[in-house]
């Protein structure tokens, strides 16, 4: 009996073996590259940095996590989460009517155009878009100019003099950072919401009308609950993407650090890997909680 034949007999008698062999590479990939890296990260966060020599002390300690609760670090986390939440809510509010139109009214070439319009920003470079926004929002940029031409400079000034979110110009304020975030991540909200709305059966809406529901009632009791998983799925994207981004706030904003920037600086320049790792665990925890919540709302049925 040749080896090949013997081999195929073996696989015939033990079908599980073949499956295992086929699955081994992807499992190893996920196990080592993905989960292994995460575990290494987690491990690092339990080390600490000796403040004096700047050397990493490889002993188990919770000191690094303690540092997360220092005021400036708590502020970084609060700032990032607030921004992510604001961006997510705004994206949902803007995306819903757009998706609704696309899913229920657009037909044929209009629909193709719609897809193109939503996807097109994703094709161009992220950096180019962010730099373009910096110019648009600049003190001597087009928005200030238009406000001046329309004699609305006072309104812009009033907006910018709002405490906390204001600043010397739109591009040096939280308002600017927020606008750019919303612009950049909006497509990631529109697409899942639209997918969810497409699946709302038309006959349910007609039935609601037949039974005497006003359009408002139909929307509230039929469409919205059925589309909600799509909104939650979209919010997972916008929320987690905002939570981790470190480039937008560096180009447009007032230099107050977000989690991503803190991680970048701590691991890159300072060699403070433990604190950087501890910072990375924060968005992971937040997203874990968020995903658990989303799962209960049935968000993953719409993916």
């Amino acid at each position: 009996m040749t080896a090949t034949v013997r081999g195929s007999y073996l696989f015939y008698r033990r079908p599980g073996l073949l499956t295992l062999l086929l699955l081994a590479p992807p499992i190893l990939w996920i196990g080592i590259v993905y989960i292994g890296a995460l575990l290494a990260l987690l491990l690092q966060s339990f080390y600490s940095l000796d403040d004096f020599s700047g050397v990493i002390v490889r002993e188990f300690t919770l000191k690094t996590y303690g540092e997360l609760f220092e005021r400036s670090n708590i502020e970084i986390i609060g700032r990032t989460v607030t921004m992510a939440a604001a961006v997510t809510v705004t994206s949902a509010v803007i995306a819903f009517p757009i998706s609704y139109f696309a899913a229920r009214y657009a037909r044929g070439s209009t629909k193709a155009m719609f897809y193109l319009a939503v996807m097109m920003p994703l094709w161009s470079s992220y950096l180019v878009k962010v730099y373009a926004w910096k110019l648009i929002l600049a003190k001597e940029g087009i928005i200030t100019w238009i406000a001046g031409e329309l004699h609305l400079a006072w309104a812009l000034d009033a907006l910018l003099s709002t405490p906390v979110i204001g600043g010397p110009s739109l591009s040096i304020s939280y308002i600017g950072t927020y606008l750019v975030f919303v612009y950049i991540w909006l497509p990631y909200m529109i697409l899942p919401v639209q997918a969810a709305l497409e699946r709302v059966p038309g006959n349910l809406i007609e039935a609601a009308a037949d039974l005497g529901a006003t359009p408002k009632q139909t929307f509230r009791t039929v469409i919205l609950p059925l589309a909600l998983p799509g909104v939650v799925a979209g919010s997972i994207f916008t929320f987690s993407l905002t939570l981790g981004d470190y480039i937008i706030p560096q180009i447009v904003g007032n230099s107050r650090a977000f989690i991503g920037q803190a991680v970048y600086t701590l691991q890159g320049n300072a060699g403070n890997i433990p604190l950087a790792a501890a910072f990375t665990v924060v968005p992971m925890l937040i997203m874990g909680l968020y995903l658990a919540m989303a799962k209960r709302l049935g968000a993953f049925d719409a993916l």
Partner: protein
Amino acid sequence: MRVFKTTLISLAAIAATGGIAAAQEMMKEIGKGEGQVDIVAWPGYIERGQSDKAYDWVTEFEKSTGCKVTVKTAATSDEMVTLMNQGGFDLVTASGDASLRLVAGKKVQPINIDLVPNWKNVDDRLKNAPWHTVDGVHYGTPYQWGPNVLAYNTNVFKEAPKSWSVVFEEQNLPDGKSNKGRVQAYYGAIYIADAALYLMRKKPELGIKNPYELNKDQYAAAIDLLKAQRALVGRYWGDAAVQVDDFKNEGVVASASWPYQVNLLQADKRPIASTIPEEGATGWADTTMMHASAAHPNCAYLWLNHSLEPKVQGDVAAWFGSVPAVPAACKGDELLTDTGCETNGYANFDKIWFWRTPIGKCEAEGTCVPYSQWAKDYIAVQGQ
């Protein structure tokens, strides 16, 4: 038994260091080129005419030596150190905050300057600079240097500002308006040294001897100064392109900057000039260093020599906005022109404190605040 173990370990340690020491031997002669040399460099440091035909100092080297040059650009000093630790490269253009780390980590080898005929061209001020010379041994050849200048708007300042105070303390600028929201500071924590440099003169009672070596009190004073500065600064700059744009569109009129941005702004006909105030300035100085186990040592030596040709030095300086390590490059270079060196800061060498990584054990104070602390606190300063 325990004694035996310890002896074994120390023997192993001796053997290990011995091995490294052997690898650290200087080369005695240059053999035939290996046909290749791999370099880690700052973007813009090694050009082969791809960005602009006039700026090419590689093609001719490849033709005359037969060594093909490959370049891997790195964006930060840390990236350079990481790449060198991984190995696979022959040379690196390391700044002062990376060079000593490389020497301490035994990642670079001593350079036999007798094998680099152009060493005689090197600026005397750089020949024994502490960021590449350890115990009288050279670990590389100087490449380029430059100051962190004070860039200012000439419409606002009819005369160059005399002190860094225009960016550190709230005051009315010569145009009568406050400097609040119109100045910038550097995004990296190494900028704490700029604050310390300002305090060296402003508050002599602190006794700061070296802005990279600060004890607790001196450090606290620098942080306090930077906290007050936060109210004046709209945005910190980390990206040269962002700063150029902020000078153009955000009404920034004064900031710590590099000659690179100033040259760009002047080329664009903006009313920007630069100066080095009376307190002096921080700066950077880069060294071409050779990997301890370079695979192409002969070509590497040939490049070291080539990199010190006046023509190469002048062209790099013109492209990068830096000062050449070879004074002869300042005369007669077409691209740099005869005023280029002066513009980029040639005469200010003595006023400059070159970048170094602040470490816990230091000469000036015994124990100093290390860089990891700088980084953490500077994030807090910016966030307040």
